[in-house]
C-alpha cells in the first residue's frame, strides 16, 4: 500500500518539494495529490517583475510541461483547501471534496500585508504577489501616470522597478527613516536612496501614511502623519508579508503569537502527520521571506521521507540583488547588534559606493556586511561568513579597492567541499565537482546539471570561479583554448587578428599557433577573417579553411549534392522571380521546397552545375542567401501595415532594410532576425537573435532568442526606438557579440555564458559603459560597405567557376547519386531502395 501524501499549495516551495521528492529513491512509496488555489502550476515569484520587461506567464513557470502527469502526481488546480481534520486525517476543499491522507505537507505561503489605512481599498490600490496581480497592475497602469509603492523594503523597491517598467512616474514611501531597514545600515541606505532618486524615482522616508483620499490632479492623495501629502493614480502595497496560516486555526495546530505555523527542526507542526514548509512556517520565531530557506525546508522533509536524518536549523538571510540597476548586498548581521562588534566602512563619494564590514570583537570572524554600488566582494565575504573562516590580519583590505595594495581574498580552493555556492538551489562545491566528474565542461553544463545560477543568478560569479579553478586543477587547462593548435579562445583569436592585422590563417598559425590546424580552428579563423576583414570565403588561400558548405557556397546534402537558397529579403518576392526559380528548378531537376526561413530552397544540385544555376539566378536579380554561412540567414517578417488591418508599422520594409544591412556579415554562429508589425507577433520575432516589434511608441527591440534545439524566448532589450536608434543598437549588439562570443555560440548561448548577463549587454550597447559604441558602429559600417555577393564574385571569375567539378579528370556525374520520384519530385534513394533496385530515376 502506498502512503497517501497530500500537499496543500503549489507555490515555489511546494513545487520544489515535489521536484526533490520525485528525484529521491523513496518517491515510489507515495501516492501524491496536490491542491493549489491558483489557476496555474507553480511559477517564479522571484522574477515576477520580469513580466513587465517582456517575460510571459509561461516563461515564469517552474514546472516543465507534463511534469506532474509524467510522475503520476495528481495535481488539482483552482482547488483551495478549506479545512483539515487532523483526527480523521482528511482535508476538505472549497468545492466540498473530502480526501484522506497519511501525511500532509502545508506549503501555503504568505499574502501581502495591507496596512489598515482608511482608503486602502480604493480603485487601483493593489498588491504584488501573483500573476493575476500583475495583470491588474498592467490594467491600472493604463489609466495612471503616477504610481506609489508603500513600503521601501526589498520587495517594495522591486515593485517600484515594476512601476517604472510600466511607464509610470514612480515613488516609494517608507515608514522607517531609511530604505531596506532590515538589510541595510544608515550609510548604505543613504547611498542607495541617492542612487534610486537619480533614476527618477521619488523616495520618501519617515512617512507614515494616514489616509488615502481623492486627489486633485491625480486619482488619489496620500496624506502622511506629518501633514505632507503626495498625489498618485496608483498605489501598490508592499508592506511586508503575513503567513497563510488559516488552516492551522481550523486544524488546531500551534501558531506563533504573531502568526505562522510553528514547526520544529524536522519541519513538523504540532501534529506528527503534518509538515509545514516555506513562508507559512514559523521556525524558531522566524518567518523566512526568501525562497532559499523554503527550499532547505523542502529538502529536509524529502530526506526524512527517505528515512534519512535531516534537520532544518535556520537559514542565512544574506542577499545580493540588483534593484533598478543598483547593486545591493547584505550579509549576516549588518547592524552590529553584538555589542563588542567592530566595524569598518569604506565610502567612495564620487562613485557612490558604500561598503561596511562587521567583525567579531577579536577581529577574527565576519559577522555581517553591507555593500551598495559595488557587490563584487559579496561571494568572498559570504563564504567567509557561512564557513566561519578566519579573517585576514587586516580585514579592511577585503573591501578596499585593489589599487590600494594586493586585494586579499582567498582562492576558490580555500572553500570547504560543503560550502554552498548557490543558495537558491542548494548547490555545494561538492555538487559542482560531481557535475564536472560527470562530464560538465562549461557554465551552461553546470546550469543544466545542478540548476546553480538559474534562480536569482547572484551566485554566477562564484560558481564560475570555482568551476574554472576545478577545471584547471584537472588539467582541463580550462580548455579556453579553441583546439590543440591555438592556446587561445575564439575571442582572443579575434583580437589577435584585428590588432595584428593578420590576413591569413598561415600568418596567424605561424605567429601564435602550432601544428597544422584542424577542422575546429580553421573554420573558426576563416569566420574571424570574414568578421574582421570581410575576407572572401572562396579565395584560394581561404578555401582549405572552410567547412564544405562555405567552401562551395551551398549546404551539402546527405548524398553530396548541394542546396541553392537565394536571398529573399523580408520574404517578399516578385512573380517573375518565382517563375525564374521554377524554371531553374525544372531545368536542373531540383527538388523545391518553401523552407522554414521564409524562402525557397532548391535541393539536389550537382557541384558542377552550381555556377550555371547561380549565374541564371543572379541575372534574374537574386543574390546569395548565405544559408551555408555563419552569418545572417533570414529576417522573417509579417505583412505589416501595408496590408494588415492591425499593422502599426511597415514590418516588411524594416525587414528588407535589416536584411540588406547585415547580409554577409560573418559571425560566431548563424544569426536570425524577425520583424512583426504589431504585438500579435506573426513573424515570431521573439524567437530570433534579433527581434523587432512595432508599437505605437516606436520599435521594441528583443535580443538573444533562439529556436532550434534549445528554444529561448528573446529578452526585451529596449522600447519605443526610432529607426536610427534601432539600427545603432543592432550594429553595436551584433559587433559586440561577434567580438566576444565563443565559436558556434548563438546569441542565446553567448548571453547565458556572459558574466553580467543582459544587464551588462545593455550597459555596453545602450549606455556605452565601455566607451566602445562608436568603434563598434564603425566596424559594422566597414563590413556593410565592403559587402559583395559571394556568388556574384564566384560566377564573374572564371578562375573560380573552374573549381566546381565533380571530378578533376572526367566530366561525369557522381555514380553514387541515385534518385526516386516522390510526390512529383526527385529525392535521394534510400539504402534499401538501392539494394532492392526498384525502378530508379537516374539523372
Amino acid at each position, binding site marked *: 500500500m502506498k502512503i497517501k501524501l497530500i500537499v496543500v499549495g503549489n507555490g515555489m516551495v511546494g513545487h520544489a518539494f515535489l521536484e526533490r521528492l520525485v528525484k529521491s529513491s523513496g518517491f515510489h512509496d507515495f501516492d501524491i495529490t496536490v491542491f493549489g488555489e491558483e489557476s496555474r502550476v507553480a511559477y517564479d515569484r522571484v522574477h515576477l517583475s520580469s513580466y513587465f520587461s517582456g517575460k510571459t506567464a509561461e516563461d515564469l513557470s517552474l514546472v516543465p510541461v507534463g511534469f506532474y502527469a509524467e510522475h503520476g502526481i495528481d495535481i488539482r488546480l483552482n482547488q483551495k483547501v478549506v479545512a483539515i481534520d487532523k483526527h480523521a486525517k482528511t482535508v476538505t476543499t472549497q468545492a466540498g471534496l473530502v480526501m484522506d491522507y497519511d501525511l500532509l505537507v502545508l506549503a501555503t505561503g504568505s499574502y501581502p500585508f495591507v496596512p489598515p489605512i482608511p482608503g486602502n481599498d480604493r480603485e487601483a490600490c493593489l498588491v504584488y504577489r501573483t500573476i493575476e496581480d500583475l495583470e491588474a497592475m498592467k490594467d491600472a497602469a493604463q489609466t495612471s501616470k503616477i504610481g506609489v509603492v508603500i513600503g521601501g523594503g526589498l520587495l517594495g523597491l522591486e515593485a517600484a522597478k515594476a512601476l517604472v517598467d510600466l511607464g509610470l512616474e514612480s515613488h516609494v514611501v517608507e515608514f522607517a527613516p531609511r530604505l531596506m531597514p532590515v538589510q541595510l545600515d544608515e550609510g548604505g541606505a543613504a547611498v542607495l536612496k541617492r542612487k534610486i532618486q537619480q533614476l527618477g524615482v521619488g523616495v520618501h522616508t519617515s512617512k507614515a501614511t494616514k489616509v488615502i483620499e481623492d486627489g486633485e490632479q491625480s486619482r488619489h492623495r496620500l496624506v502622511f502623519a506629518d501633514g505632507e501629502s503626495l498625489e498618485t493614480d496608483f498605489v501598490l502595497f508592499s508592506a511586508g508579508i503575513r503567513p497563510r496560516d488559516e488552516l492551522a486555526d481550523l486544524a488546531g495546530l500551534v501558531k506563533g503569537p504573531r502568526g505562522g505555523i510553528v514547526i520544529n527542526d524536522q519541519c513538523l507542526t504540532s501534529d506528527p502527520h503534518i509538515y509545514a514548509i516555506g513562508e507559512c512556517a514559523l521556525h524558531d520565531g522566524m518567518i523566512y521571506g526568501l525562497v532559499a530557506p523554503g527550499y532547505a525546508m523542502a529538502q529536509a522533509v524529502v530526506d526524512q521521507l527517505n528515512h534519512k536524518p535531516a534537520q532544518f536549523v535556520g537559514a542565512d538571510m544574506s542577499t545580493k540583488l540588483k534593484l533598478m540597476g543598483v547593486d545591493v548586498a547584505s550579509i549576516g548581521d549588518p547592524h552590529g547588534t553584538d555589542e563588542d562588534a567592530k566595524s569598518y566602512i569604506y565610502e567612495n563619494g564620487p562613485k557612490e559606493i558604500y561598503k561596511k564590514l562587521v567583525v567579531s570583537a577579536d577581529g577574527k570572524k565576519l559577522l555581517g556586511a553591507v555593500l551598495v554600488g559595488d557587490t563584487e566582494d559579496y561571494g568572498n565575504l559570504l563564504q567567509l561568513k557561512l564557513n566561519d573562516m578566519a579573517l585576514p590580519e587586516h580585514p579592511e583590505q577585503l573591501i578596499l579597492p585593489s589599487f590600494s595594495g594586493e586585494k586579499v581574498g582567498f582562492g576558490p580552493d580555500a572553500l570547504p567541499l560543503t560550502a554552498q555556492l548557490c543558495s537558491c538551489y542548494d548547490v555545494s562545491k561538492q555538487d559542482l565537482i560531481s557535475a564536472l566528474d560527470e562530464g560538465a565542461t562549461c557554465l551552461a553544463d553546470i546550469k543544466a546539471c545542478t540548476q546553480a545560477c538559474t534562480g536569482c543568478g547572484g551566485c554566477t560569479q562564484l560558481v564560475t570561479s570555482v568551476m574554472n579553478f576545478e577545471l584547471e586543477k584537472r588539467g582541463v587547462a580550462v580548455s579556453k583554448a579553441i583546439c590543440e593548435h591555438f592556446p587561445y579562445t575564439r575571442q582572443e583569436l579575434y583580437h589577435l587578428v584585428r590588432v595584428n592585422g593578420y590576413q591569413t590563417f598561415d600568418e596567424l598559425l605561424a605567429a601564435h599557433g602550432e*601544428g597544422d590546424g584542424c*577542422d575546429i580552428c580553421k573554420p573558426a579563423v576563416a569566420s574571424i577573417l570574414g568578421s574582421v576583414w570581410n575576407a572572401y570565403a572562396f579565395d*584560394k588561400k581561404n578555401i*582549405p*579553411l572552410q567547412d564544405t558548405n562555405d567552401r562551395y557556397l551551398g549546404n*551539402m546534402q546527405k548524398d553530396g549534392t548541394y542546396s541553392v537558397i537565394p536571398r529573399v529579403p523580408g520574404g517578399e518576392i516578385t512573380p517573375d522571380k518565382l517563375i525564374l526559380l521554377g524554371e531553374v528548378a525544372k531545368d536542373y531537376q531540383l527538388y523545391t521546397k518553401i523552407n522554414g526561413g521564409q524562402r525557397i530552397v532548391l535541393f539536389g544540385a550537382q557541384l558542377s552545375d552550381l555556377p550555371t544555376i547561380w549565374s541564371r539566378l543572379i541575372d534574374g536579380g537574386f543574390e546569395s542567401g548565405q544559408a551555408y554561412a555563419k552569418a545572417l540567414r533570414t529576417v522573417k517578417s509579417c505583412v505589416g501595415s501595408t496590408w494588415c488591418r492591425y499593422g502599426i508599422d511597415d514590418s516588411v520594409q524594416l525587414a528588407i532594410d535589416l536584411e540588406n544591412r547585415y547580409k554577409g556579415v560573418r559571425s560566431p554562429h548563424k544569426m536570425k532576425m524577425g520583424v512583426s508589425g504589431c504585438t500579435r507577433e506573426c513573424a515570431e520575432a521573439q524567437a530570433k537573435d534579433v527581434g523587432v516589434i512595432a508599437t505605437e511608441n516606436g520599435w521594441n527591440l528583443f535580443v538573444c532568442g533562439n529556436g532550434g534545439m534549445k528554444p529561448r524566448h528573446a529578452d526585451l532589450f529596449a522600447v519605443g526606438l526610432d529607426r536610427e536608434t534601432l539600427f545603432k543598437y543592432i550594429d553595436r549588439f551584433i559587433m559586440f557579440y561577434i567580438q566576444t562570443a565563443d565559436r558556434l555560440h548563438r546569441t542565446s548561448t553567448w548571453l547565458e555564458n556572459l558574466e553580467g548577463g543582459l544587464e551588462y549587454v545593455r550597459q555596453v550597447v545602450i549606455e556605452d559603459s565601455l566607451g566602445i559604441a562608436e568603434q563598434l558602429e564603425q566596424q559594422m559600417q566597414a563590413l556593410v560597405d565592403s559587402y559583395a555577393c559571394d556568388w556574384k564574385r564566384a560566377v564573374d571569375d572564371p578562375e573560380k567557376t573552374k573549381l566546381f567539378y565533380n571530378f*578533376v*579528370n572526367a566530366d561525369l556525374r*557522381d555514380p553514387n547519386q541515385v534518385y526516386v520520384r516522390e510526390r512529383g519530385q526527385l529525392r535521394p534513394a534510400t539504402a534499401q531502395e538501392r539494394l532492392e533496385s526498384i525502378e530508379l530515376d537516374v539523372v
Partner: protein
Amino acid sequence: MAEFKKVCQVSDLIDNAGIPALLGNTPIALFYVKGQVYALDNFDPIGQASVMSRGIVGSIKGQLVVASPLYKEHYDLVTGQCVENPEVKLAVFAVEVRGAAGEEAVWVAQP
C-alpha cells in the same frame, strides 16, 4: 605490380585541401599537404556519399588527417584509418609525381 595511371596535373591540386578525381571507375580524393600528395577513397563509409575530397585537412597530435564533411570523423591521410572508429578504414592508393619541372602530373596506382 600495381599499374599507375595519370590522374591530373600537380597545378590542379589545392594546397592544404582535397579535390575529387576518377581512378578507373573509382572516385578518389587527392590531398596536397606540405608538398606531398595523398590519395584516398572518396566515398565516406559512414556518411555513405562521395564527399571525402571536400573535408578539411589538419592534424591531431601531429598525425595528418582529413575530417569527413558530413559527420566529422577523422581519417589518417597516410593509412586511411578512421580515428574515431577502429573498424572503419578508407582505401589508400600509392601516388607518384612524374614529369618535367612545371609540368608535373599526379600518377595514382590502380589496385
